């Protein structure tokens, strides 16, 4: 059993290496399929990161009237912090608000000038509230409306994370759907091409196949190497796809990091082993599946 397996692998490898030119197109398309699946694999973690980024943002900002003193504001802060839906409350004084504004608009001389023109600090003290869940900021606003310190409040701003998160989810789901459809189409094309490669390999060896039959080679002794050849095509495609994905993650790392809070390379390395296994499974599965069909159809012993 072990001897036959070893021989099948050896003969399959010979068939694969001798038909390298023939296998080229199959490997190319199979790499496309595996890369598409790799992309889909990372779509989940990346959108999770994007969403958690959004979740970090403040839900509700409560601005206090010009004349509200800090002591009262701190009382209000303590009251708000007691609310069950509130996760975190942060106090931003008038001075801190001004400082943040100046920092954010360092290069904008017009804004800075107009601020000087005003002659005083126009910013209001505020409390930045984060809800336990992105969706229950509405409860917080209701509670704010019925509070004793309502008279201190100038205005309440809602940073609506909900639609942003929903958008990210919808976007990811959309890409996922398109990706799955594309993967299925590409996989079908790869399957057909792999099938054809094995068919041609069988056709090219038709004379030798008839000799094998006459000297008493069993069905699977003849078929095995062709099946193995398809598996080698899938395996090599998976390895190349892994290298491409590795290099891509390495290359885009700094560019992605500049736009969003995402370390692409770190994410890749975290999933590398599992990804490699998935890629090899997809490659070998596709290769073996299509050769099996070709062998059953064209290699009748």
């Amino acid at each position, binding site marked *: 059993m072990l*001897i*036959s397996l070893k*021989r099948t692998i050896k003969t399959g490898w010979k068939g694969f290496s*001798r038909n390298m030119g023939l296998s080229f197109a199959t490997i190319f398309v199979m790499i496309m399929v595996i890369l598409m699946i790799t992309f889909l694999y990372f779509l989940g973690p990346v959108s999770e990161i994007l969403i958690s980024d959004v979740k970090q943002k403040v839900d509700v900002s409560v601005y206090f009237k010009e004349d509200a003193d800090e002591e009262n504001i701190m009382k209000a802060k303590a009251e708000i912090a007691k609310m069950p839906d509130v996760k975190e409350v942060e106090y931003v004084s008038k001075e801190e608000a001004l400082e943040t504004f100046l920092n954010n608009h360092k290069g904008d001389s017009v804004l800075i000038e107009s601020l000087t023109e005003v002659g005083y600090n126009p910013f209001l003290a505020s409390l930045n509230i984060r809800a336990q869940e992105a969706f229950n900021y509405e409860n917080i606003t209701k509670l704010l409306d019925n509070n004793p310190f309502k008279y201190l409040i100038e205005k309440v701003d809602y940073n609506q994370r909900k639609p942003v998160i929903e958008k990210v989810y919808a976007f990811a789901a959309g890409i996922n759907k398109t990706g799955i459809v594309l993967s299925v189409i590409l996989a079908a094309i790869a399957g057909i091409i792999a099938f054809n490669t094995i068919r041609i390999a069988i056709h090219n060896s038709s*004379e*030798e196949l008839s*000799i*094998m*039959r*006459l*000297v*008493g*080679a*069993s*069905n699977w*002794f003849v078929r095995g190497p062709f099946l193995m050849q398809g598996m080698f095509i899938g395996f090599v495609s998976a390895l190349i796809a892994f290298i491409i994905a590795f290099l891509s993650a390495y290359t885009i790392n700094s560019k992605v990091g500049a736009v969003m809070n995402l370390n692409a390379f770190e994410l890749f390395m975290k999933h590398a082993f599992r990804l490699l296994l998935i890629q090899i499974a997809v490659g070998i599965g596709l290769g073996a599946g299509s050769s099996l069909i070709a062998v059953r159809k064209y290699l009748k*012993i």
Partner: protein
Amino acid sequence: MISIRNLSKIYPSRTGSGAAIALDDVSFEIQEKEFVSIVGKSGAGKTTLLKLILAEEAPTKGEVFFDGQNVHNLRKNQLPALRQRIGMIFQDYKLFSSKNTYENVAYVLEVIGAREDDIKRNVPEVLELVGLTDRAENFPSELSGGEKQRVAIARAFIHRPDVILADEPTGNLDPYNTSDIIKLLAKINKLGTTVVLSTHDKEVINGLGKRVITLDQGRIIRDEEKGRFVL
């Protein structure tokens, strides 16, 4: 060992003007360790007979028994086991062009699941027997007709089959090589393997002094112990 009973093979005509009768009600027995020559003109039915024994083709009528088993009743997955007991030598050699001499011979041992060290020990021995030790690394395209036929014999004999079927093994060879091949087959027979030789070479047969079955137009016209080529 091999029993042929009322064997007929008719190839239907594709033009509709009469079918070709390759074998017509042929019956005979071959005993273990026997050397039997099947002779006859081209088209007498020699190759068809060997193909039917190897179950490469199905008979129109009749039966072929190999050790009591009707070979044409075997299921497809039982055929390899039958063929592994037979060594077949073809007029056109039928060597694997992508394998060298050593690999061609070793292939049959791989087919029967022989161990690697057995293959490494056996193949050189048989290559020595057929005088091809120096040509072990050469591919069929680099061998002469006589050498190719000796590779084919080595391949047919390597796994010590119960019987060797040789279909016109000297058909493409000069007299010198012909004599070599026949001597080899006689030697293999002496070692205990049944040999069935089909030929239309008069010299070959007359020098052998073994059993000769003569076919003419698909029928046995003579079956003699220590026979001669008479047509």
